[in-house]
């Protein structure tokens, strides 16, 4: 795994920990924001907004709807950096 991907992972995880107030060890790739990390629908919207800000990107609504897990968030950002 390259350093870039490692870096993205760390930043995404930090956002999730900060936004949802969860423990870092709970932020595992397969964790679902709503089912496992206690997010409500508004939290998931805010999470996407925070990702957009952190990575200076615009995530279209139809893509945002699919970002439901930690892995989905990391994958989306990894694929769309540069």
């Amino acid at each position, binding site marked *: 795994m390259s350093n870039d991907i490692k870096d993205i992972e760390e930043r995404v995880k930090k956002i999730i920990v900060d936004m949802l107030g969860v423990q870092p060890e709970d932020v595992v790739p397969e964790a679902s924001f709503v089912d496992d990390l206690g997010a*409500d629908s*508004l939290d998931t919207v*805010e999470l996407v*907004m925070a990702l957009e800000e952190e990575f200076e990107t615009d995530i279209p609504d139809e893509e945002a709807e699919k970002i439901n897990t930690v892995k989905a968030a990391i994958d989306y950002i990894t694929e769309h950096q540069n």
Partner: protein
Amino acid sequence: MKLDFTNKVVLVTGASRGIGKAIALAFKDLGAKVYGTATSQSGADGITEYLQGQGKGFVMNSLDSKTVEECYNAVVADAGTCPDVLVNNAGITRDTLFMRMKDEDFMAVMQCNLLACVQLCKLCVSPMMKKRAGRIINISSIVGQDGNAGQTNYAAAKAGLIGFSKSLAKEVGSRGITVNCVAPGFVATDMTAALNEEQLKAWTNTIPLKRAATPEDIANSVVFLASDMASYITGSTIDVNGGLHCN
């Protein structure tokens, strides 16, 4: 608790005259930095003038969604932040009996009185969510609650604002944003000046408080809803109608 809006940024649409001007002036007097919109450059200049350095007027045509976004961006650029308080006040009428109402008259009123407000709410809500604070006040109307012959378009838009505000209030309440409406009754403005004296008298006679509202009567309730005093009020509509319609 004091009414004080020092360091607060307030955006009022339709602020060149009538209710919107009274609202903008009320916030100015309470220390806010006020941005007002008008449909023409001369209207915007007039706003800048009466704000006396405590804000600025911008051109926005609610019938054109592009200018709504441009205006919002210009306000944010000038203020350096998104508005703390959004007052959707701009409104138009295209009155006629429903049987004679053209589709474009119906849609113009919906666009200006409902959809442009919705658009501004959308632009303001994300930054307000980030700030965990925000006040949205939508100016509805007694006509949206009671109906009025000749104003099916206006009533639909103004009733729409109330339902919209209630729903948005429930969505964003947990993020410290309140969304409320003010529903004026009969207010003495340019919009109602079209009536002749006889019609005016007939109207005021039906009002329990026996007078039309002044624009300041409406502004008072808007300022209250935007203040810390109203921090537990959301999803509600304040009727300012002299008793003409009681919910």
